[in-house]
């Protein structure tokens, strides 16, 4: 029972989402519509579960005084701070509560979360430059194809390339639209077949790692 019911749910829901594609009948659509409205809610719960899990794991670390535990306190406190100003303040009608620009929530977003995340990703600019200098080695014919295309695209895609050669952008468009597109499309078709066969195995219960251990 503990395995059969989930597999049955998975199968029925999955099949209904496939059938929906082929059956345009109004009555059927409205049933599927209801399932989808439910799905949105359950998926939202799944994200909350993830956040609850984050709190749980980090509280454990704090309790055990595990590695980096003072930082974990900051993590948990900032998480609850956002929920407090975003939800609790809003419910009790406290000034500057709720979400949107002009609230505490919005202020923290624009002055903390935004710079943090944007900077985190901008580190990659440094890493890619360093990798280009120290590890980008053209050692084979295949690597040279990659390198030549990469360099052409890098230079041809920016204004300086165009001032070097007026037709550079058109040439890059050709590379993007013909040889690179062919490669991408081959990968895409292969990946689509893989994704569909994996999904089919999940639906039919052949693949059930999502159920976890007993």
């Amino acid at each position: 029972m503990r395995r059969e019911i989930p597999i049955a749910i998975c199968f029925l829901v999955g099949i209904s989402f496939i059938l929906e594609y082929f059956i345009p009948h109004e009555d059927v659509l409205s049933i599927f519509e209801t399932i989808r409205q439910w799905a949105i809610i359950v998926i939202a719960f799944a994200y909350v579960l993830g956040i609850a899990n984050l709190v749980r794991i980090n509280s454990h670390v704090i309790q055990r005084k595990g590695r980096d535990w003072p930082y974990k306190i900051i993590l948990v406190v900032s998480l609850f701070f956002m929920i407090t100003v975003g939800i609790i303040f809003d419910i009790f009608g406290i000034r500057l509560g709720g979400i949107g620009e002009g609230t505490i929530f919005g202020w923290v977003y624009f002055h903390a979360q935004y710079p943090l995340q944007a900077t985190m990703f901008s580190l990659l600019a440094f890493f890619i430059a360093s990798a280009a200098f120290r590890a980008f080695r053209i050692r084979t014919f295949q690597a040279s194809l990659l390198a030549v295309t990469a360099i052409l695209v890098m230079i041809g895609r920016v204004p300086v390339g165009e001032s070097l050669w007026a037709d550079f952008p058109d040439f890059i468009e050709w590379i993007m639209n013909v040889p690179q597109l062919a490669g991408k499309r081959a990968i895409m078709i292969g990946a689509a077949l893989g994704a569909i066969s994996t999904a089919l195995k999940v639906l039919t219960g052949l693949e059930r790692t999502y159920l976890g251990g007993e």
Partner: protein
Amino acid sequence: MRKILEKLESLDRRIIFIFIGLSIAIPLLFPVYTDFSVTAPVEGFYDAIEELSPGSKVLVSCDYDPGSMPELFPMNVAVFHHLFSRGHKIIVMQLWATGTLLAERAMNEVLQEFPDKRYGEDYVNLGFKEGREVVMVSMGTSIPKTFPTDAQGTKLEEIPLMQGVTNFDDITILMNISGGLPGTKEWVLQVQSRYGVKLGSGCTAVSAPEFYPYVQSGQLVGLLGGMKGAAEYEKLVQRPGTAQRGMDAQSVSHIVVFLFILIGNIAYFSVKGKKKRLKVSR
């Protein structure tokens, strides 16, 4: 010479970091504004909006967050500007939770240029909805059921702009600003190919090459790829923004990366020659 090359081989990466930092800071401080032309995918995106009859209802899904803001925020602002300047109605939504305030800010920025635009009549923000592809498919049968209220909690029935909007049939075109997953790929697979909606995409440069097949197949009407795409589009809508401002820095940093690859390889091959290689090849 050999000594210099050997030194280069073992150069501290922090020196490389300083180089790349400067290659971006200096052009930003002293811009020369190199001119550039507009490429076909960007033109396709622009034309798709130009061709709409005034007053069309356009759905703009802003699916990105601060991690890709320098590329996508300028597009977002330019799209709103373009749509308003052509007299279209904008329905905004988001599938990324951590980007909702960015779309709001983009709208507020554009509203300063169009003070007569009224919320609920000319534009509406449906807000964020969880569920990724499920939300997309669900909107195909009923937008009001998927989004019972807008971002502020007003019921959709009470919003004039949303009168008569049931599903994608009532949307003229969908413009997606895409930072990753869920984004343009999912909109193409779940909505464009299923409901036949016209779809345009503004995406990060990382995912742009992956979307070229969709432009060729006609699944996308146009594509803005990365900051360069945004700059070209800003040029077309004649609203210079941060993307155009960044183009010089983009040029210089690309040249620096190119030189890095070049010098790195010269150093490598002249110092070590061809070192140990695997026998296996493809």
